[in-house]
């Protein structure tokens, strides 16, 4: 059995119990997906209590739609699609989405500040680095993976537009596959990679600042 087959049969067992009204089954799903749902909802509205309402709202819709769920996607993906819809609706109503004019969005298309490279027309080093790139291998491992470093990671995500924040959260923190995120966001695989790359590049920049300031 492939991993998706395993997932599908676990899904159908869980669904059967859920439809039969098992509170234990509900508790299991809530404990597996609830924390990630809350985290994702927070990325849309940047407010913990609003995010909690969104997660509740999503569950009302999930339970209400249970009989219509046909298993064409995994249970997890289906739940998160519903969550995303609830979150976007709510964010629009509350006008908490990050505006398009956000400075982070406009500069997102370059992974590195263009000023850090020689011009493409440079006679000797076209498009080569003109600035220093720190060697993190010289940093002690416990500092690279410290609680402060993961805090800096999260703070960087919180500044990203929601779509970018959702992609990096699900891929790199929650460990979702590229296919799962592509299905969830209904984007092309290329688009998913672009969103992920830009989000990672932005987080890397924040970490450069963080490790740089720490060294001084």
């Amino acid at each position, binding site marked *: 059995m492939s991993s998706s087959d395993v997932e599908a049969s676990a899904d159908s067992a869980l669904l059967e119990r859920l439809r039969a009204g098992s*509170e234990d089954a509900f508790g299991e799903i809530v404990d597996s997906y609830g924390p990630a749902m809350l985290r994702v909802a927070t990325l849309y509205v940047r407010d913990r209590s609003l995010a909690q309402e969104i997660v509740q709202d999503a569950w*009302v819709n999930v339970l209400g739609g249970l009989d219509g769920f046909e298993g064409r996607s995994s249970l997890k993906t289906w739940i998160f699609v519903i969550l995303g819809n609830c979150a976007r609706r709510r964010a629009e109503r509350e006008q908490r989405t990050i505006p398009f004019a956000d400075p982070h969005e406009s500069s997102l298309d370059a992974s590195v500040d263009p000023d850090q490279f020689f011009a493409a027309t440079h006679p000797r080093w076209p498009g080569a680095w003109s600035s220093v*790139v720190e060697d993190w291998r010289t940093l002690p491992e416990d500092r690279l993976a410290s609680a402060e470093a993961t805090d800096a990671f999260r703070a960087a995500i919180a500044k990203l537009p929601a779509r970018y924040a959702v992609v990096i959260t699900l891929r790199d923190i929650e460990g979702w596959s590229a296919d799962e995120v592509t299905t969830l966001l209904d984007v092309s695989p290329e688009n998913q990679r672009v969103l992920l*790359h830009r989000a990672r590049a932005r987080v*890397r920049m924040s*970490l450069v600042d963080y490790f740089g300031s720490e060294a001084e």
Partner: protein
Amino acid sequence: MIQSEPLSCREIVELVTDYLEGSMPPGRRLGFEEHIAICPPCRNYFDQFRHTVELGKKIEEEQLPPDVREALVNVFRDWQKDAR
């Protein structure tokens, strides 16, 4: 194999996720690896990028706060009542 144009550093930094995801054509992949092998700043950038990805994996999932979980169980109970 078709030899593609050599990649500049500025191009390399945009291709790291494509490389890590295994979504580059073989010729491009080779060009990327050759560049990284001879370019110390790009090697450092690549290493920083990989560390960034690894750091994300180390962020631990917190549990739901008890009151949030309780509220969700109530959603379930209400749904059940309505279903009967």
